[in-house]
C-alpha cells in the first residue's frame, strides 16, 4: 500500500505535542499548553477549553448512558457532579466506551455525598453487568427440558457451561427491586423491600433480563459457573441458606438461559 519509502520520513524524537496537549485536558486548573495558539496571534484559552469540555462532558455522558437508573435515583445534577470527579480521576483506558465505568460502583461507595444511599453502588453494579450482558457473545441457551432425560442418580454429577451473557450481582440491600423500579420509564412507587437481594442477569437471545434470585440461588449459580457439579453446588447453597429450594432454583436457571450446555462430570467413572 505504501507509495513512498520510509526513508523519506524525518527521523528523530517524536514531537511532544500530544503529551503537552493531553496534560491539561482533565485538569481545569492547569495552564493552556504553550504550544497552542489562535489565528493571527489570538489567545487559545477558550479554544483549548472546547477540547477540555468535549472530553469531560462526553465521558460524563458515557457514564450516564451506562448507569441510567443510578442517575434517576440521584437526579441528573448529583450524578453528573459525581461522575465528573470519577472521569477526572479515572478516565477510560480503552476506546470502547461500553467497557467504561467498571470502577464507578467502587467510586460511588467512597463518594461522601452518596453515603445516605448505601445501596446505590450495587444498583450501579447491576447496570454495569446489564451492559456486559448486552454486548456479550451470542450463544444458544440450554433447552429447559435438557435435564428431564437424565436419570436421577446421575443428576448430582452434572456440570453446566455458563452462557457468555450470564452475570450475578450480590447485594446486602434490595438492589434488584431498586434497579427495576428506576430502570423503567413509569412512575416509582414507594419501595418497601429492605432485605438483601441477589441479581441474575441473562440475555439468552436479544433481551437482557434481570431476575431476583431466591435464597441460596446466588451461591448455587456461582458454584455452577465456576464448574462445580450440581450436587456440589446444591450442597454449597444449602450450607449458606437452609431454605434453599433445589427444584425451584433448577427451574429458574433453566428458564433464565444462564447456561448453554451440560456434561457429566463423572462420565469416566461409568464406562
Amino acid at each position: 500500500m505504501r507509495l513512498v519509502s520510509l526513508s523519506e520520513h524525518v527521523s528523530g524524537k517524536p514531537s511532544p505535542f500530544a503529551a503537552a496537549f493531553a496534560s491539561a485536558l482533565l485538569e481545569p486548573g492547569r495552564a493552556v499548553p504553550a504550544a497552542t495558539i489562535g489565528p493571527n496571534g489570538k489567545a487559545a484559552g477558550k479554544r483549548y477549553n472546547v477540547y477540555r469540555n468535549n472530553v469531560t462532558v462526553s465521558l460524563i455522558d458515557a457514564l450516564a448512558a451506562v448507569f441510567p437508573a443510578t442517575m434517576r435515583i440521584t437526579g441528573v445534577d448529583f450524578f453528573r457532579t459525581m461522575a465528573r470527579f470519577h472521569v477526572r480521576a479515572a478516565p477510560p483506558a480503552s476506546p470502547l466506551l461500553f467497557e467504561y465505568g467498571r470502577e464507578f460502583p467502587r467510586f460511588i461507595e467512597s463518594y461522601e455525598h452518596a453515603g445516605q444511599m448505601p445501596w446505590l453502588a450495587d444498583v450501579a453494579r447491576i447496570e454495569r453487568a446489564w451492559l456486559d450482558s448486552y454486548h456479550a457473545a451470542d450463544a444458544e441457551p440450554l433447552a429447559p427440558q435438557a435435564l428431564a432425560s437424565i436419570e436421577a442418580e446421575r443428576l448430582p454429577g452434572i456440570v453446566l457451561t455458563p452462557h457468555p451473557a450470564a452475570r450475578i450481582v450480590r447485594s446486602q440491600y434490595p438492589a434488584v427491586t431498586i434497579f427495576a423500579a428506576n430502570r423503567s420509564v413509569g412512575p416509582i412507587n414507594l419501595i418497601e423491600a429492605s432485605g438483601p437481594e441477589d441479581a441474575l442477569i441473562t440475555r439468552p437471545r436479544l433481551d437482557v433480563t434481570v431476575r431476583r434470585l431466591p435464597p441460596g440461588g446466588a451461591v448455587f449459580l456461582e458454584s455452577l459457573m465456576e464448574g462445580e457439579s450440581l450436587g456440589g453446588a446444591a450442597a454449597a447453597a444449602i450450607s449458606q441458606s437452609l431454605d434453599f429450594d433445589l427444584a425451584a432454583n433448577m427451574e429458574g436457571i433453566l428458564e433464565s438461559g444462564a447456561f448453554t450446555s451440560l456434561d457429566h462430570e463423572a462420565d469416566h467413572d461409568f464406562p
Partner: protein
Amino acid sequence: MSEMAGSLPRASETSRFPAHAIAGLAGTSFKHEHLPAILAEGRQDGFFEVHAENYMGAGGPPHQALTRIRQDHAVSLHGVCMSLGGPQPLDAEHVARFRALVDRYEPALVSEHLAWSTHETTFFNDLLPLPYTRATLAHVVDHIDQLQEAIGRPILLENPSTYLLFRESTMSESGFLREVVRRSGCGLLLDVNNVFVSATNHGFAARDYLADFPLGHVGEIHLAGHAAQADDEGDLLLIDSHDGPVADAVWKLFEIVIGRCGPLPTLVEWDSNIPDWPVLKTEAAAAQGILDRHAAGSMAETRHAAR
C-alpha cells in the same frame, strides 16, 4: 478521481451480504432507535454509516441491528478512535477489531480521522488536533499504512474541524492532506461542515481551502450541523456538534464541491439530540436532490460530448 478513493470491497465467494451500490447516493448515520422506522419503509436507496467502535462488542443487539441493515443497504464503516494522528504506535488490538468488522460487514466505504484520541493509556473520547509538520506527517502516513495493510484496502481520511492552531505547524492542512494521500495511497473524506467550522474559527475563506484541497481524491462527503460559541476575544467560535440540521452556508459549499467532483456518496451526520427518522431522512433527501441534479448534469454533458 483516484482509483483508490471509495473503491468497492473485494468481491468474494464467501461474501455474507449482497453488494449494494453507493455511487451517487446520500446516506445517514445509523441510529438503533431508527431501525423500526427504517424497516417499516422497506428497502430504499441510500446508505448508512456506523461508528466502528459501537460494533466492537462480542455479540448482542448491535450486531443484530447492523446485520439487518447491511442486508438491504451499503454500509460505511467510520472509525472514530484509531488515533491515527497521535505520535504513539496504533493499538494493535484495536486495529485487529477494526479489521474484523471490515471482514464481517464488507463495508462499501471505510474511513477514519486526521486526529488523535489516546495518549499513553488514556482515551480522551474526542478528536484532538495535531500540528502539521514533517514529523507528524511521517507518523500519520505510517499509521495509515499500518491500518491499510491490516484491512487490505485503502481508507478515506477525514479532514478535522479544529478550534486552535499549533505554533510549530509548518504546513497548511490541505497541503498536509495532499502529502498524506501521495505517500499512503489513501483517499479522503471531505467533511464540508468541518471546512466551514475551521474556516470560521481560524478566519480563512472556506472556498480558498476547497480550492487548495485535493478534491480528486475525495471518496465521500460528510455534512452535519454545528453550534456557536465565542473565543477569548468574543469572536464567533463554531463547534462541530452534530446535533442539528445542516447550515445553509454548508449546503452552499456542498453544491460547489459536488459541482466540481460530481455526485459523491454523501452522508448526513446527526449524533446527538437525534431527531425522529423522518427529519434525518429529509436532510438526506435534500442532499440526494443536489447529487441527482449534478448526476443529471454530468450525464447530459457526457451525451453532448459523445455526439
